[in-house]
Every structure is written in structure tokens, then in C-alpha cells.
């Protein structure tokens, strides 16, 4: 837990395109345990939003219940936040997004919130391709209730009490790819170099962008024998490709032109550059993505990076053909047909 944060900031702090410093993107002090992976994810979100020069008040951050779901208080203090009920953030985010398609939606959830109580809402938001960045802070356990195994705990993983999990784990990324998600990535809270560009790409993606972030629980699931500990994750990381995120304004340099890089252009014109990927792997090939994920799991590797990306997917608004103006800006004149129309309807019913 961070009790103090210096008020003093260097006057020469770097500023982004909007003239804001990184501090402008911070939130309240974290009340999580010292060393919690989630705080690193919050830091990565702050950095990504700073670098993307997003207006914080144009972001709505939503969460469910749990340690992870507390984190939206700790970043983007000028954004509206909604700490909803356990496992139900996807539906609240769906409604919010339908009301105003012009905001950026950032959903924060945990492995209990998503893979157990909220599984139904998660998969349905995903199959509707809701335009949201959905970050799961995945530590394989229930922190707030003192360390019970969650549904993403790996089979055979030992928790702090010595209990060995007998159940198969749910691979949220594999499931998301299977169900038609359009942006699926996995990362590690301890790898900011990878996580920040992934968050930037996800925020720029038009559609459901899942980032499953392994984020160790220092208090209840960081022990030897746990497959979600810092040490274990570091030792078993395997990367599909390293990720660079480039805004539409920046040119793609010659570095990426060679055969070792794969460039994917997102809906807003920005680019995701994947370097040194396996020559047989393409991020836009759903079947190959599934295969790669299964192979990694068989080898005991934790595959990170972008696993699957389909930039041309139609989001929920496109599928419903809603108007471009946000629904929450429509007024009586747009919405209410008036008494004359009602008289016609009356006449039809006599």
C-alpha cells in the first residue's frame, strides 16, 4: 500500500500532445497490498492514456467487484467511474456504450469477476463485439476473501495454504478467440514494455479488445508451487511477437519494413507493429491463433503478446445500425412523434 505520494512534480515533466503531464492521468492513492501486480497495470493504463493524449473525461471506466475492480479509482481521476456489481460490468458497459458511442470505454475486471460469476456477461459482451477495452487482472485467486482458487487457477497449482487445485483452468484468451473476439492479447503486469503498447492498441481498436494480464497476488498466490507467482510467470513467458503501437500521425520507419515485422492497421488509422514473429504465424488467422495457444499450453509456456487481431470487425453499434449522434444527446424533437401520430395510431385501433 502506498501511503504517500510526493506533491512536488518536476516543472519540466514531459507533456503530451494535449499539453498534459502524466500526473493529469493519475487517480487516488492505491489501497492495494504493496507489490500488487494490479498497481503496475494501473500504472500502465496511466502511461498508455498519457501517451495516446486521451482527454480523460472522454473515458468511462467501469468495473465489477474485487481487488482488480477497485483499481479504476487509482487512475484517470477526471474520468467518470462505475464500480458496479460482481461480474456484471459487461452489461453496465453495454448500456453505457449504447447511450454514448463517442466515449472510450475501459472495463476492468478480475479472474473471479470474469471467469466465474461474470462468465455469462463476459462472453455475451464479447460476441456482441462491444467497443470496449476489457482488461482482466488475472491472479488466479480471490484476494478480497483471502486467497481461494479462482477458475483461472491452473490445474496442479498450489496456493498459499498448500492446497493443490484439482480443476482445469479456464483460458480466457482461448475462449475469447473461439467466441469471435476481435482483439485478444495476454500480458504480464511485470512487463510494462509489452503491456503499455498493448493497452494503447486495445484502446484504439474498434470492438471488444481483451487483455488478460497475469498480475500476481503478492499476499495469497505468490508462493512456490503457484503458477501465477512472479517467479513462475517470468520463467515461463513466451511471446508471440513484440508489440509496437504507432499512431496514425507517425510514419512507419524502415525498421519495420523487413520480413521480420507484421503491420496491422487499426480502424482509426493507427498501426500495430509485431516484430520477430514466428514466420508461420499471422495475428489475423483465428485458427492459427488457437493452434499456437494450444501448443504453448502443452509446452507449459505462458504465451503473451497479441494472440489474435481482426481490425475490420463490426461493433455493436454497427450491427444495430444506431445513428452517429450519441443516443444520450437526442431530444424531444428527435424522439417524441407527437400527438398527430398518436391520433393515427388510435384510429388504427378502433
Amino acid at each position: 500500500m502506498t501511503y504517500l505520494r510526493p506533491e512536488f512534480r518536476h516543472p519540466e515533466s514531459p507533456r503530451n500532445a494535449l499539453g498534459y503531464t502524466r500526473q493529469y492521468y493519475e487517480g487516488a492513492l492505491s489501497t492495494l497490498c504493496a507489490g500488487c501486480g494490479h498497481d503496475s497495470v494501473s500504472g500502465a493504463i496511466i502511461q498508455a492514456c498519457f501517451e495516446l493524449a486521451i482527454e480523460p473525461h472522454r473515458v468511462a471506466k467501469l468495473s465489477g467487484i474485487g481487488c482488480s475492480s477497485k483499481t479504476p479509482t487509482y487512475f484517470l481521476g477526471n474520468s467518470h467511474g462505475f464500480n458496479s456489481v460482481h461480474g456484471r460490468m459487461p452489461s453496465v458497459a453495454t448500456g453505457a456504450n449504447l447511450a454514448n458511442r463517442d466515449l472510450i470505454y475501459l472495463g476492468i475486471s478480475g479472474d473471479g469477476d470474469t471467469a466465474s460469476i461474470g462468465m455469462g456477461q463476459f462472453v455475451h459482451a464479447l460476441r456482441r463485439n462491444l467497443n470496449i477495452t476489457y482488461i482482466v487482472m488475472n491472479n488466479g485467486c480471490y484476494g478480497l476473501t483471502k486467497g481461494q482458487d479462482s477458475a483461472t487457477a491452473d490445474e496442479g497449482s498450489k496456493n498459499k495454504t498448500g492446497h493443490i487445485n484439482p480443476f482445469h483452468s479456464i483460458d480466457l484468451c482461448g475462449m475469447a478467440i473461439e467466441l469471435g473476439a476481435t482483439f485478444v492479447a495476454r500480458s504480464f503486469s511485470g512487463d510494462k514494455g509489452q503491456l503499455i503498447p498493448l493497452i494503447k492498441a486495445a484502446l484504439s481498436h474498434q470492438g471488444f479488445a481483451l487483455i488478460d494480464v497475469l498480475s500476481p497476488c503478492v499476499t495469497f498466490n505468490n508462493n512456490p508451487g503457484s503458477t501465477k507467482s512472479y517467479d513462475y510467470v517470468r520463467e515461463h513467458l513466451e511471446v508471440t511477437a513484440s508489440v509496437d503501437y504507432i499512431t496514425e500521425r507517425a510514419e512507419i520507419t524502415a525498421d519495420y519494413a523487413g520480413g521480420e515485422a507484421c503491420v496491422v492497421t487499426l480502424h482509426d488509422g493507427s498501426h500495430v507493429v509485431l516484430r520477430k514473429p514466428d514466420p508461420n504465424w499471422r495475428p489475423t488467422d483465428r485458427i492459427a491463433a488457437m493452434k499456437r495457444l494450444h501448443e504453448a499450453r502443452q509446452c507449459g509456456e505462458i504465451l503473451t503478446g497479441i494472440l489474435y487481431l481482426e481490425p475490420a470487425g463490426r461493433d455493436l453499434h454497427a450491427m444495430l445500425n444506431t445513428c452517429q449522434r450519441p443516443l444520450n444527446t437526442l431530444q424531444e424533437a428527435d424522439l417524441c412523434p407527437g400527438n398527430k401520430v398518436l391520433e393515427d395510431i388510435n384510429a388504427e385501433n378502433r
Partner: protein
Amino acid sequence: MSNLVNDFVIRFANVNGTGSASANTLFAKSVFRMGVPVTPKNIFPSNIQGLPTWYEVRVSERGYLGRRAGIDLLVGVNPQSLAADVRSVRPGGYFVYDSSRPLDKSLLRDDIHYIGIPMILLCQKHFEVPRVQQLLKNMVYVGALTALLDVEMEVVKQLVIEQFKKKEKLIASNHLALDLGFHYAREHYDCPLPVRVERRNNVGDRIMMTGNTACALGAIYGGATVAAWYPITPSTSVVDAFEKYANRLRTDPITGEKKFAIVQAEDELAAIGVVIGAMWNGARAFTATSGPGLSLMNEFLGLAYFAEIPAVLIDVQRGGPSTGMPTRTQQSDILLAAYASHGDTKHPLLFPSTPTECFEMTASAFDLAERLQTPIIVMTDLDLGMNEHMTPPLRWDDQRRYDRGKVLDAEALENIQNWGRYLDVDGDGIPYRTIPGTHPTKGAFFTRGSSKDEYARYTEDGEAYRRNMDRLLKKWQTARELVPPPEFFQPQTRCSEAMLFFGTSTYSALEALDELRAIGIDLDGLRLRAFPFSQAVHDFIEQHERVYVVEQNRDAQMRSLLMIELGISPQKLIPILQYDGFPITAATIVSQIAKYHPAATELLGGNGHPHVLA
């Protein structure tokens, strides 16, 4: 069976999925077009095809629109239910059947009249395709009834023309089927029967509409842009109708873009979650559901209450508990809705009693929800929602503006000094809210279901928690006088006893007040239109020695609510109940109330109807 002109009940016994519904509706609508008040009720199984279904039409010149027991004429075309159908006819009544095959002797009663029409034989003679023969058989019996009950054939045929205006080639065959039944009845029976229809002018400018359609129109006019739902009988047609009218009235004719969004959610939890998310973000949103769905929505309703997020729900109540009787009516979600969710919660409820009121209350529910920043539940029921009712025309005041409640825009945020999301500035318990995206640096806050202080900061301080809970109670007091007031039915001189009713019990309650007066029991009447109860409701009960509370559930839930919220003595409130899934009848009410008036009981007939009216 003397005077049954414009005062009778006719029942159709059909197999569901055989196209009988449109023929039966045609009959009811024809009577309505002849200026005679009519009440159709669809009594259907929880099944798509093959099980018995009934359609009951009460014709009442005096305008009584409640259900009435006792069948004067039954059209029995369902072999499965024939025996029970024959038994259900009143002595002296009529049984119309398909005489293409002889009726089994065991079905013959000597106290009713039998009218055989060879429906299928007539169809086989004139139509080739077997499926068409089956469908038009229904029109043959409507034709026969037209002759037997003296319905005007031009009216019936005109309705057929209107019904098939997009499928014109069907008009001739339907007209022929009507004529076949009509002429057969004329040639073989003494037409018209004593049970018959005579043209009147007792309908006025009223329309025929289901409550669900009216709720949907209320949502359109009330400015709803987001509808989220999970299919459940009997609420499904609310969103179906919303979609139909929204496609017609809210779609750009050139681009096809829609000024609305409908999400068929994965379950009711998600449906209410979508509504809460949309209203949190400044759009008007609603869901339509029934008891089982409302049970699932409890957790979210607690969040919306505590975090103070508007939401609109339409609960089309059906028979509970559990799956209960999905295709029968009840008013049995009252306590669930009033106190939905754990902890200290309560929610304003609106009780429409006609489709017109479904329209008005649904539209107003959005204003109330945004004004009070809390969920509003419109408590309709299957009878109101799925049956067509004769109801005053829908009207909209074009000067009316939506009440968006206390929402701060960017300019207001610029000028405000000390804003707290949960700060009671005006003394009415209602704080000011902000919509995401309004201002770069002001007005952002964290919405949560956990305890917070006036400035939306998380707190576990007991004093701050208590202050917030007390403010919510103050808001509740504000709500008491904001919700629709009760309607009074009082003669000049005040009576010592009164009847209290709400929703679809109203039709039969008003009829019962008339019938009770005829046997010397004078009662004042009050129709509840909303919860929380206003001071006027309290005063009305105080002013009477005894109040009969009429409702359609087993446990007298509204009576409990009155006791809990107004502190009324249980002895004073007498439950008058019907909970068999059928709409409550005046006879039920009269007979239960008459028990408290021994002298008057002697005037009652065995069927609960006063002799003077029977």
C-alpha cells in the same frame, strides 16, 4: 335467460396454433364496432401448438369491462376439451359445435341448447387445400355467430378487408367462409337467439389495445432510446411493439439509421444492467419482464437504489411463485418489487389499470426515474398486458417537455462552488448528478454500490453511512407526493366502509361497488395508482372504519404494504382475494364483502350476483 341483449359472455374453445385467435378477435372487434362495450380475454396454455386454448368475450352494454363468470354461449371446436366445455355452459345457455360428425351422446345435457354447424364439411365442399379448410373453419363459426347473435355482417366483412389489406386474395375466401356459416345458421336455426347484439353508441372514441402495446408506445413517447430485455411471457410483446413502432417512427428514412437500440440480453441480470448503464450515461432506457425476471434483477435494483441511478422497468405480472402459471394473471409481485434487493431498499411502483394508463405511466416513469434518480417499476399484469382492452384514446400534449431531473451540464459545473454527488442541496433528498464526458475537470466521480460520503468518496464511517441512508429516506418522502395520486370513487355522503383496489382489479371493483349498492352495501372507493402511498391514501383509510383491499394474490400483499408503510391496523384492512390465475370478477368481490354484511347476503344469488341483476 330472458334479457341477454348486449349482456352476455361467449367463450371459444380452440386448439392453439390453429389460427383461431384472429377469427375470435374478429368477432370481438365486430361487437366493438357496433358501439357495444366488449372485453376479450385470451386464456391460453404455456405451449405453442396442440393444447386447449380459450377466448372469452364479455359483452356489456353498461360498460363493465371485468371478467364475468358463467358462459352463455360456447363455441366448442376442440375435441380434447369438449366434455369440460359442455359442462361449463350455464343452464339455458347455448353450445355451438362442429356437426360434421355427430356429437357423442355423453355430451348431451338437457338444460342447454345445441347448435350444430357442419363447419369442416362446409369447408371441404368449398375449399381444396386441407390447411385452408382448417383455417377457414374458424371463419365459418364466426359467420354462424353473425347470424345467431345478430351481428352486422357488413361490419364483420369490413374488418376482414382491413385485416387482409396487404393480402387481398385472402379476402374473398374469408368472406365466403363467413357466408357459409351465416346462411347455414339462418336456414337451420331460429335467428337471432335471445342472446344477441344490438347496435348502440356506448363506445365513444375509445380504442382497443393491449397494455403491452400501450407501454411500448409510452416508452417511445417518453423518449426511451435503449431497451434491454430477456424474452419472458407475458412481457415479450412490450419490446416487440417497441421495436415495431421504433422502426416506424425512429428510423431515418434515407440512411436507415436508428435513434434507438434494442439488446436482447443473455438474461434478466444483463437486461437491467444495460438499462442502468445507459441511464447512468444519460440515455433513457427500460426493460420489460415478469416475476422470474424481476427476481433475477434484485441485486442490480439495490445498486441503482443505493448509487441513485434512474431505471425504468415494466413488470407484466403472471402467476407465481417460481415458474408458477406463466400464462395466467396475478398481482403477486408487489412485495418483491416494493422492497427488491438486500439491505434497506424500496422502490416507487406505478399501477396502471387500463392501456391508456400503461401509456401515460410508462412515459411518466422516465420523468420520475430521472427526477428521483431511482428505479421506477410499472406494475402491470398479464390480463392488462396481453388482452385487448377498450380504453380511452392515447393523447400526448405536444407542449410537454421531458423532466430530466437534476443533471448538471458543463456550464452549471463551471459555476458551481461546492458540488457533491450525494449532497442534499435543496432539502428534498435529491442530489445533483453528472453525466460522463460533460466537463474536462469537474463533475467526475466514482459511482459505486458501496458506502460513500456526500462527495462520492468511499467511506466506512458509520455516521456518513447513516446520513446517506437518512437522505435516501428523505428522498422517499419527496417521492410520496411526486407519484400519481389515488383516484377516489365517493358518493356525496361519506360511507363508513370503503373498498381499495388497483390495477386490473379496478374493472371488477367498480362493478362490485354498483352491485353492492344494489343490495344495500354502500362503500367508498379508492384506486391506488402508486407506491409510496401519499398522505391522501393514509387519510382515506383513517376516515373509514373498515377497508376492503381487493387484490389478485394469495397473501394480500398490498394489504401488507399498507400496514407496513402507513402503520394501519391489520383488523381494519380486510383482504378480498382471487388468485386462481383468472382475472378477478365482480361476483368474487361481492360475495366476499357480503359475508361481512349478513343482512345483505340474503339478497345474493348462489353465483354471488345480486338477484336484482341476475
